[in-house]
């Protein structure tokens, strides 16, 4: 079975959130529901030397939707078998079977699942499966002005960009084996007290 994946270049992402808007527009998501979130990560502090203060703050952005994991914990935990993988390895939800218990949301370490309170069903990034059928790229990938997002078979992404799929604040990849390749920001390797500084923005409403 083929496994499609996202590639994200954190070293060049401007945090403009065009990807987030493109996804929302394409899928006509209601207010408060986002399938793709852009996390702003910052670490470091200000350093004082004599009477001067110098910024030693580093930051980068992380645009993340669903990683269509090779071993999705959401699929294993769903009591209704409403979550399944298609022939492209995309993790999709059968809305007819979903009862909106949010157990998958509790389990997913990437925060990929969201309850649509209007329909009462869990929803998530589909990697624009319908666009893939038409030979088109997902809307977030096409819309990105910085060209930091790509999508394709995981093997191709890893061959082209390497197989790094861990960057703060992502969890260890061995839990769910995300189909994701990430180019980290140059500062990401520094041992700083990194934190997400836009938590209120990315929280589900």
């Amino acid at each position, binding site marked *: 079975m083929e496994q499609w994946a996202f590639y994200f270049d954190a070293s060049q992402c401007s945090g403009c959130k065009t990807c987030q808007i493109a996804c929302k527009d394409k899928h006509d998501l209601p207010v408060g529901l986002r399938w793709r*979130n852009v*996390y702003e990560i910052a670490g470091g502090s200000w350093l004082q030397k004599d009477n001067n203060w110098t910024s030693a703050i580093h930051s980068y952005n992380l645009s*993340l939707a669903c990683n269509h994991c090779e071993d999705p*914990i959401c699929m*294993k*935990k*769903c*009591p*209704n*078998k*409403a979550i399944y993988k298609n022939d492209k390895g995309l993790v999709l939800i059968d809305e*007819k*079977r*979903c*009862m*909106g*218990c*949010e*157990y998958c949301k*509790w*389990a*997913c*370490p*990437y*925060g990929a699942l969201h*309850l649509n*309170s209007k*329909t*009462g*069903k869990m929803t998530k990034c589909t990697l624009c499966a319908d666009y893939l059928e038409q030979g088109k790229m997902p809307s977030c990938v096409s819309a990105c002005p910085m060209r930091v997002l790509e999508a394709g078979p995981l093997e191709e992404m890893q061959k082209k960009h390497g197989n790094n799929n861990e960057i703060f*604040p*992502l*969890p260890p990849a061995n*839990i769910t084996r995300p189909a994701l390749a990430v180019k980290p920001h140059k500062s990401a390797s520094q041992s700083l007290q990194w934190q*997400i500084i836009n*938590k209120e923005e*990315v*929280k589900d409403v």
Partner: protein
Amino acid sequence: MFNAEWSLVFFTLFSQFSLGLLLSSMVYRFFLSGTQPGLRTKLMSSSLFLSFLLMAVALVISFLHLASPLSSVYALSNLAHSWLSREIMMASLYAFLLFMLLLSHRFLTHNKTNLLMIAAGIAGIYLIYSMARLYMLPTVPPWNSLATLWAFYISAFVAGPSLFLALYHDSNQPQIVEQTNKAVKRIFSGIVFISIAAKVLLTFLANENAIENINIAFITEQPLQAALISHWLLVSVATIALILNLSIKKGHNTAKLYYLAFFSLVLAEIIYRIIFYASYFRIGL
């Protein structure tokens, strides 16, 4: 957390209270009721009815958690991998067995009732086990320990015996109060005391990060401290009520103190369960 999880607080607690009451009824029926056949019938009727009622209410409440309850017909599809599927199956089976037990107590023979009781007890014990296991997610560290399992069974063993004691003393006719079985008081009070001691031990052994990881978007430190203090005050009230009842002279009605102990423990467990859900913290994003 709170909007969606209120129903789960009461679903989990009522299920656990139901099991605690059923197991207490079993202990009484099998080991302690020999000299009190008349009392046994009356007491079994009320305790089995209450046990079933608690579980029935728990099941109804559990549906309030679902955004699309009509799709719950598919809930038994993933018994192979999902503890939530197993919990749903066991909750349904346990409730069904309790209902059959109610009918059998009235219409069937003593032996058949005993068998149904054992079956319901086993189903209930596995229900609480699967309930705890579904919370033990590898991505949720505060919940992913034996402390969750321990806490869920403790809820059953503090509330069930204390309610049974209250029902026992309520069912006693005044003329036989003097012959109140000391063993009943001591055994069931003992179970509650041991469970409270286990609760104290759990507090020291529990994941120390659980308190720090509580989502501060929902609860600040001061309300948490107040909640914990209230919880332990209520447990202390229940403990004192039970100790008083043990030392009280024969011939005095002690049902009120047992009800005080029961309701104090129920409130304490509600507070502790809210803290449990508020401790939700998922690794990653």
